């Protein structure tokens, strides 16, 4: 599956939130630095500006995350921030640590 498959919301790029407790969303297209995407899956949709490039299928931070702060997806902790992550930042193995295995 290539990027761009799910560009259906009036051409908007989508960041999908899987649980209301989450502080990251999954982008359903390649998102470039400074590009806005539509956050879906919460009660009200909202905009989020990517602080950097976030590849298709990867996670974007919904809020500023302090180093050591729990990163939540599916409403569960999938790791902690290994460094401060700005809102709109790309969250992946370079800035996420998980003691349970990664």
């Amino acid at each position, binding site marked *: 599956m290539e990027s761009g498959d*799910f560009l259906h919301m009036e051409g908007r790029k*989508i960041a999908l939130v899987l649980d209301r407790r989450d502080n990251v969303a999954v982008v359903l297209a390649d998102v470039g630095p400074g590009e806005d995407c539509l956050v879906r899956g919460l009660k009200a949709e909202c905009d989020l500006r990517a602080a950097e490039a976030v590849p298709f299928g990867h996670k974007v931070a919904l809020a500023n995350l302090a180093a050591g702060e729990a990163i939540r997806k*599916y409403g569960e902790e*999938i790791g902690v921030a290994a460094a401060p992550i700005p809102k709109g930042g790309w969250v992946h193995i370079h800035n996420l640590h*998980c003691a349970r295995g990664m």
Partner: protein
Amino acid sequence: MAGFFMGYPRENGTYGARNHIAVIPSVFCAAAVAERIARNVPGSFAFRHPVGCSQVGEDLEITARTLIGIGRNPNYAGVLVVGLGCERFSPHELAEGIAPTGKMLETVIIQDEGDTLKAIEAGSRMARRMRRAASLEKRTEAPLSALMLGTNCGGSDMTSGLAANPALGIASDMLVAEGGSSILSELTELIGTEHILARRAVSEDVARDILAAIAAMEERLKNQTRHAGDEKRKHLISTGNYEGGLSSVVEKSLGGMKKSGSRARFVEVFKTGGAPAKKGLLLMDGPGHDGEVTTGEVAAGAQVICFPTGRGTPTGFPGVPVIKITGNPRTFARMGGNIDINAGGILTGECGLEAMGREIYAEILAVASGKLSRAEILGHDEQFCITRLP
């Protein structure tokens, strides 16, 4: 049609979603005879397998319990056991395990009948009689407490964890809330989420069972693989997973765990080949091979299987509907002939997760009540695979 499905009532109080005849060889030596009998009597299914002899210990136990469990499944109105006559797992033991259900049951033994053709003839006559008697059975309203759903995901891609599995989890929660049962398994794919699963247990005892089962599965994997990275579970996550956006073993396993929903609590852990004593959300202790998982679930009594697949897989189970769900709109567009439900709308924005969960739930009840899954229509039967122990 909330609150019930239309099932075939069985003597022991269970209900079948189907009304087939199972032709089960007790040993691989009887497989061709069993298949020829099933071919003679449409509506019957042969269960070809490579085991039943020269096995010892728990490996033999799993084979025996699995074959007995399949024979007991209420989707089969009657069972024909086909034996060779000298195998380690005796056909009489298989028949005795099935007999308490009170269903139609016959045994044919090749060495007693004389030869292949005589055994096929005798067995075909038995299967024909059972098929005719089964055709008189009628579906009646069955309580949802009598419905057991099995789950397994295979041919997964990144849409599985984002769309199909969470939507199936909502349906699973709905079924359990109505008194029904749902099975989560694939323990090899759940490593890393054991603390979350344990938190969803109804009691401390069940939480302990969950932690013990997953720890034992992880130990078994460690003994089979000796990579340097094993200590940090690196072997459980691949380069492709990283490229797809998964960052930790917990994140990867959560995507699979979501098939079990989030509201329902685990009431019991049981070993593959066994049958659970309780109703509700169940964890089946067994590895993550698609066929071995569904075989264990059918042996536990599941009448319907839900199978999320991102990339698309055609497989099915003899006599048990397998509902395929894809979260990938492209897979549905290309392979829709094998897929029952398109959950891709969750990603394209055409459908919410909750609404898709309700659609899957309605499909489970419709299929349990007689609607055919595509895997059944196309005759797919690959998922019958018995778990072996090394």
